[in-house]
């Protein structure tokens, strides 16, 4: 009764935007927009030319890149290089992710066995692999190890350590620590704690990340050859340099197709995974 009469007597008031914050937000948006306008102006981007590019691309494609030289990519030599690319991606992804697992464990603040030294070291390793682009890794390894599949695999390993390691570690950092504490209270050592309290909690998420990592690693594997590291990329480079445009078209086509197939397979695998997870949740409810 009394609360009702209070509400009637007193005008209640609420505002989504309040004075100092709204001004700051408005200024920030304005700044961002003017920065965009300035950079367009500065780059002297001519919309007219930008649009005409599309027409020209079509022309060039039709004239020089068509028809793709399908006979060229059915040669045993080229097919061999396709297999090589797949092998490189496979080895690189597997080895990289195997190394990423312990690194992610050490680099997760909540469960790292040693916050003083393992944690910063593992963080540094993961950040280091990430900060260098996978193509730069390839160039580095080619200069050290020479041409061939080995530098390609090494570059992919470095890439996977950075890529999967970071995602794995982030997944560990949001687990339920109660389960970890229960194992510690049992007298379990750090490795046992990881296996019994961390692994069961991250297993499903890690599987998804592993599939995703494979996707990206495979795409990278198709081009590392461009920098001298074996696989299809090497054919791409040679034909680009010799201006064999119809062969280049065929190679690009094969790359697109392969990546597409790989993505389809992993999309299917991820779909199955999420269905299984949803099924589990239904059972829990």
């Amino acid at each position, binding site marked *: 009764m009394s609360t009702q009469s209070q509400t009637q007597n007193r005008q209640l008031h609420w505002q989504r935007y309040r004075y100092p914050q709204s001004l700051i937000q408005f200024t920030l948006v304005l700044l961002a927009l003017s920065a965009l306008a300035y950079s367009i102006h500065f780059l002297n981007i001519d919309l007219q030319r930008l649009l005409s590019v599309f027409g020209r691309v079509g022309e060039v494609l039709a004239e020089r890149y068509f028809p793709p030289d399908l006979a060229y990519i059915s040669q045993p030599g080229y097919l061999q290089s396709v297999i090589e690319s797949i092998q490189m991606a496979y080895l690189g992804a597997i080895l990289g992710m195997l190394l990423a697992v312990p690194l992610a464990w050490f680099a997760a603040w909540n469960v790292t066995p040693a916050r003083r030294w393992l944690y910063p070291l593992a963080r540094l390793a993961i950040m280091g692999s990430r900060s260098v682009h996978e193509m730069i890794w390839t160039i580095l390894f080619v200069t050290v190890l020479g041409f061939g599949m080995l530098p390609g695999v090494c570059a992919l390993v470095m890439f996977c350590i950075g890529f999967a390691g970071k995602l794995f570690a982030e997944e560990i950092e949001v687990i339920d620590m109660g389960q970890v*504490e229960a194992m510690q209270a049992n007298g*379990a050592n750090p490795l046992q704690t990881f296996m019994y309290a961390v692994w069961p909690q991250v297993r499903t998420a890690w599987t998804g990340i592993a599939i995703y990592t494979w996707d990206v690693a495979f795409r990278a594997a198709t081009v590392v050859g461009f920098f001298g590291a074996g696989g299809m990329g090497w054919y791409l480079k040679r034909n680009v340099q010799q201006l064999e445009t119809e062969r280049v078209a065929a190679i690009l086509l094969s790359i697109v197709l392969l990546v597409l197939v790989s993505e389809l397979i992993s999309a299917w695998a991820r779909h199955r995974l999420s269905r299984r997870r949803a099924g589990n949740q239904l059972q829990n409810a």
Partner: protein
Amino acid sequence: MSILHVNQLVARYPGAKTDTLKEISFTVNPADFYAIIGPSGAGKSTLIRCINRLVEPTSGTVRLFDQQITQLPPRQLRQTRRHIGMIFQEFNLVDRMSVMDNVLSGRLGYTSTWRSMLKLFSQADIQRALELLERVGLLEHVDKRADQLSGGQRQRVGIARALMQDPQLLLLDEPTASLDPKIARDVMTLIQQTARDLQIPVLCNIHDVALAKEFCNRILGLQDGRMMFDGETHSMSQQDLDRIYEREVL
């Protein structure tokens, strides 16, 4: 001889301005079912967790039998933790493992690393796990995943896991606070019965004073990190209770 002796224990969380526990001293004897009561935020959980050093005490000592827990290096600490069973308010079962594996995980401290990686527990351990599951009435759920059980059932798994350690002391951090009153009473009865049968002393956080009075023979009253009462349950008067709860800290 006393099982557990806590002397002048002080705990302060990193970055906190005051001590969460202020010079706590008490002794747990072999037949004790010791309750720690007090308002929310009094430091009950902190006290329990200082005993197996899930929280590091700032000063003071904790002695289990003749071992100073407060000074142990990591490896010895793990060996000593094997003798202290712990049961949690939120059960802390590994959700995505079977009931059996959860119970067996109580043996991790006694199992070599490589055997535990392959989940190769000894036949004796498996036998013991089955016996304990039977004791807590969950034998038919042995292969279920832990997250498919009800709260009461999960806490029973928690009890079996703690007993699997062959503990010489049980630490209970509000074991019944997540359960409804009827199940809470059942679980307390089960713990009391088992502790008696296996002759394990119990140190138990509990905020339900009625439950504490019914099941525990000694009571330690905490308020704002200070010991306000320590004595036999029957010697605790209404005045003592009022003193413990007089100033609610949230």
